[in-house]
C-alpha cells in the first residue's frame, strides 16, 4: 500500500492568486495523478504527473492553469493558477504502481476556497 500526504490540507485564497499543493508518497510508486472533487460532485482526473517531464492533461485542463511538477518518484506538486471562485474544490493526489492489482491510492485532499 501507499500512504499519501498532502499539504496544505485546506486554504482560503483570494481571487487572482496562485497556490501550490504538495504531495508526498511514502513508497516508490510508478504513477502519480491529480484529481479534482468539486462540492457534492464526482472525482475528475486533471492530469498524470510524469517524472522529469511535462504532465499529461485530460480534456478541459491546461498546463497554464494547472502546472504540475514531479521531480522524483515520490513527490509531486500541483499549482492552481490565477484562481477564481470556480476553482474552489478539493484537489486529490493519487498514486499507484501498475501491475495485476492496479490499486489507486488517494491522499486526504487539499480543500481550497477561493473568495
Amino acid at each position, binding site marked *: 500500500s501507499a500512504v499519501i500526504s498532502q499539504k496544505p490540507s485546506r486554504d482560503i485564497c483570494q481571487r487572482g492568486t496562485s497556490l501550490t499543493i504538495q504531495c508526498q508518497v511514502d513508497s516508490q510508486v510508478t504513477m502519480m495523478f491529480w484529481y479534482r472533487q468539486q462540492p457534492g460532485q*464526482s*472525482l475528475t*482526473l486533471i492530469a*498524470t504527473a510524469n517524472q522529469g517531464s511535462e504532465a499529461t492533461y485530460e480534456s478541459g485542463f491546461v498546463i497554464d492553469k494547472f502546472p504540475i511538477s514531479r521531480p522524483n518518484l515520490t513527490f509531486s506538486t500541483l499549482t492552481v493558477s490565477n484562481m477564481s471562485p470556480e476553482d474552489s474544490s478539493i484537489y486529490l493526489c493519487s498514486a*499507484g504502481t501498475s501491475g495485476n492489482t492496479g*490499486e*489507486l491510492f*488517494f491522499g486526504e*485532499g487539499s480543500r481550497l476556497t477561493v473568495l
Partner: protein
Amino acid sequence: QQQVKQSPQSLIVQKGGISIINCAYENTAFDYFPWYQQFPGKGPALLIAIRPDVSEKKEGRFTISFNKSAKQFSLHIMDSQPGDSATYFCAARLRGSTLGRLYFGRGTQLTVWP
C-alpha cells in the same frame, strides 16, 4: 457526459439492513470496476474491485454483483453498521488505460441509523 451513472444519490438504511448501490456504464471497453469509500475529510479508499470475467466478488460484508450483458454493477453491504456511513463511489477503467484514468460515478451518501 457521465461515463458511469450511479444511483441513488443518497441512501438511509437501518443498522443490520442491506445497503445496495447501483452503477451502469455504456462503454464495453471498461475492464476494471472498483468501489471507493470516502469518509468526511478523508480521501477515497479502495473498498473492493471486480473485473468483468466474474459475476460476483465478496469480501466480508461487501459484495459486488456484476452483470456484463446489462452493463451494470452494484455494491451490496450486508448487516450495515453505523461505521459504514460514508460516501461510496463506483468507478471504471478502460482496458489498456493507465492506472489512474478512472471514471467515477457521482457518489452515494450512505447513512446507517443505529
